[in-house]
């Protein structure tokens, strides 16, 4: 029982981290809190399903296609809607939340509800770890989480676009004077974040069915992790994922499965009351020095 809790707690934590990474990247760079994030996540799932079942595409085409389209849609949302209200935080939140609602409710309206909307697991098998039964898909999730986190680190430290991400995240004007097209780079960051949401969807959604409501849950979880960890802090995201991830599994195991979502909401409330900047909120030491 304890072993099972540890293993499932760990897996659930990685799920949360996967879900939060894309949201955090976009926010950290363009300053856009992308409230359409959950909708993009679900959209990637439905697009992949449509590719597989309506178009009859093989998985290796349908899945990357869904990721690319999701990232493209996010870039277009940025270019045609967000760019005009860039820097006006309330307008950005309203615009992205509105787009998210529109996308999610459109899927509901079009009748994308039911148990047939599932994605295939990458590997259909299961293994025993100690005396706990774990399906291979959950191990794939852990692998994907480590891979995507590592790639993000590599990307933002060793590629031109990634370094430009870090530049405009810290000081957009200075970046402009260095020849970096901040609007273009910010659009990339929104697309990049949406791409991460889509990849997370492709590995996580096979655990259940693709459902419209999943979009809201994903948004709440991503927000909870980012707020508890401290917006823009990568270490914070990892720590917060594990705190909330284990708290959710403990709640599900010892209290009530349907309360899992409550954990995220309580976490958001608690951190806002106790330490609004989050556990690893922005580098205080630097701010004080300047």
């Amino acid at each position, binding site marked *: 029982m304890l072993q099972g809790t540890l293993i499932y707690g760990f897996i659930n934590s990685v799920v949360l981290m996967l879900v939060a990474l894309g949201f955090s990247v976009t926010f950290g760079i363009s300053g856009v809190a992308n409230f359409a994030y959950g909708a993009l996540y679900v959209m990637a799932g439905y697009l992949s399903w449509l590719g597989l079942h309506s178009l009859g595409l093989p998985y290796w085409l349908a899945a990357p296609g869904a990721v690319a389209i999701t990232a493209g849609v996010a870039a277009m949302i940025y270019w045609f809607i967000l760019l005009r209200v860039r820097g006006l935080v309330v307008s950005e939140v309203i615009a992205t939340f509105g787009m998210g609602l529109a996308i999610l409710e459109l899927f509901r309206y079009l009748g994308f509800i039911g148990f047939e909307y599932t994605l295939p697991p990458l590997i259909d098998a299961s293994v025993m770890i100690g005396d706990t039964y774990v399906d291979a898909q959950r191990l794939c999730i852990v692998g994907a989480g480590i891979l995507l986190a590592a790639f993000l680190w590599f990307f933002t430290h060793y590629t031109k676009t990634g370094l430009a991400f870090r530049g405009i995240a810290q000081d957009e004007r200075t970046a*402009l004077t260095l020849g970096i097209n901040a609007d273009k780079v910010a659009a990339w960051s929104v697309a990049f974040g949406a791409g991460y949401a889509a990849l997370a969807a492709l590995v996580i959604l096979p655990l259940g069915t693709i459902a419209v409501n999943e979009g809201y849950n994903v948004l709440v979880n991503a927000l909870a992790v980012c707020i508890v960890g401290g917006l823009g802090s990568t270490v914070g995201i990892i720590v917060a994922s594990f705190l909330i991830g284990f708290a959710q599994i403990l709640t599900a195991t010892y209290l009530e499965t349907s309360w899992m979502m409550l954990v995220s909401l309580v976490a958001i409330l608690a951190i806002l009351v106790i330490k609004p900047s989050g556990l690893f909120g922005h580098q205080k030491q630097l701010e004080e020095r300047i």
Partner: protein
Amino acid sequence: MLNVKDLIVFYENAIAVNDLSMEVREGQIVGVIGSNSAGKTTLMNTLSGLIWDMLIKEQRKGGERITVMGSVHFFEEDISKLPAFRRAQQGIVLCRERHPVFPDSSVTENLKIAGYLRKRAEVKQGIELSFDLFPNLARHRSRKAGFLSGGEQQMLAIGMAMMVGPKLLLLDEPLLGLSPAMQTQVVEAIKDVRRHTGVTLVIAEQFARPLLPWLDFAYVIENGMLTLTGPGPELMDNPEIKSAYFGV
């Protein structure tokens, strides 16, 4: 290489740059001298194109109206309407006031980010050159830029601007907030940079004393208007300058 004609910049209804014309020739060091709120930063932002970014942001917010009139030509080409990042691509690079560095990134990383427009090999060379010119930076290469002293940050900021590969480097108050000793160091560093690269410089400053002897030409502005012009050493001896800027 740079020709500014009848430049006027308004913030809402207050005029910050008033009918200013200036010329910079290749290889020169040109000074823009003026006291607080004379309009130096506004002029530098207009030359670098940053003013368009401010203008657009204000427009989006429905904030204050910024109006820019007049023309800026770079190598005979009208660049008045180009945004900052395009001007940087063409070789006009501004180093903003108050040592603009990326505080959370290390010194090396700051230089790498600044090398956005350069090829990988050029970035490597540029970093080595910066470390040669500024030994202090080499010592702190993996320290976060936010933890550097003001003078070190200023040197890093100049190093970053040089990474872009400027033909014309605009420095906005590079000596601001530095001790006299540090000011001398930064002036030496600027001269070194020029010796090594032959880059053309426009430097805005209020404390002109350490710089004036080196200026091929200086424009003195007050309330956005040109009041005096002439070669730096000549202005050194000007009684008005002496009383206004050196308190003599």
